[in-house]
């Protein structure tokens, strides 16, 4: 059975490829390349796959899930400038793709029992999101 929890965080970022010219960056990222950055209200949907415990009836303790998401994602990323304050975005472009992969990397080891991390869906805006399930990139 799958369970999904949704959380939000607001962060700023700038998308610029290292070594690329102003024109190349503009062609690649559009206004997201504006040098001083901009922000989004990111919406994160974390999906776990497991079997309800016969005694508790729960796939995963939702309070614990909330604590994990707060500790691993919200606290480090909420109201931060990703490029300057959240590793590895000091050396990796914080596109929605890369942020989703980093969220997966941080969360996957937290669910190493019967219940496993199944999917990370990260909305950068209402009109743009990515799904990542840990597949080889």
């Amino acid at each position, binding site marked *: 059975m799958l369970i999904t929890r949704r959380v939000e965080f607001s962060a700023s970022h700038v998308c610029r490829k290292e070594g690329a010219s102003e024109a190349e960056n503009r062609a*690649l990222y559009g206004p997201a390349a504006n040098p001083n950055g901009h922000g989004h209200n990111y919406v994160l949907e974390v999906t776990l796959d497991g079997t309800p415990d016969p005694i508790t009836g729960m796939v995963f303790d939702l309070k614990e899930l909330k604590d994990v998401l707060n500790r691993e994602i919200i606290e480090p990323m909420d109201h931060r400038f990703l490029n300057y304050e959240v590793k590895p975005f000091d050396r990796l472009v914080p*596109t929605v*793709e890369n942020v989703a*992969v980093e969220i997966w990397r941080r969360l996957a080891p937290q669910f190493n029992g019967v219940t496993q991390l199944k999917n990370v869906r990260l909305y950068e805006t209402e009109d743009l999101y990515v799904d990542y399930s840990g597949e080889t*990139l």
Partner: protein
Amino acid sequence: MTLTRRYRFSSSHRLHSPQLNDEENQQVYGKCNNPYGHGHDYVLDVSVSGKLDAATGRIVDLDTLDQVVGNHIVNCFEHRNLNADIPAFQSMVPTTENVAVEIGRRLTEAWPDAFGNTGTLLKKIRIRETPRNIFELTL
């Protein structure tokens, strides 16, 4: 990894099959068969997959995706009458099932020119006719 981008267009249509008589059309399509048609604000989600480019951090060039969907779908359907203005719907009832099929056909046809061998694949389209009617087509 898949990336999904949302687009919108507003169009009118009338559901009326030439293979059915007037009474049958009324029965099958109800108010969607009213003679002068009606419209919707369609919401189209296009899902693509691709390889993560280590240098850009992207799996798809969003500008190219916007151009393909803009040129072949949004700019053609926006503020149009699907039955009258879109050739495919002169021989096919513009139910949202068929609109999904036509969008899939157009994007599949335009894909090689736009994305060539970049590895960007068209995976799924999801079209919302109203907040209560949603159609998905895996490609």
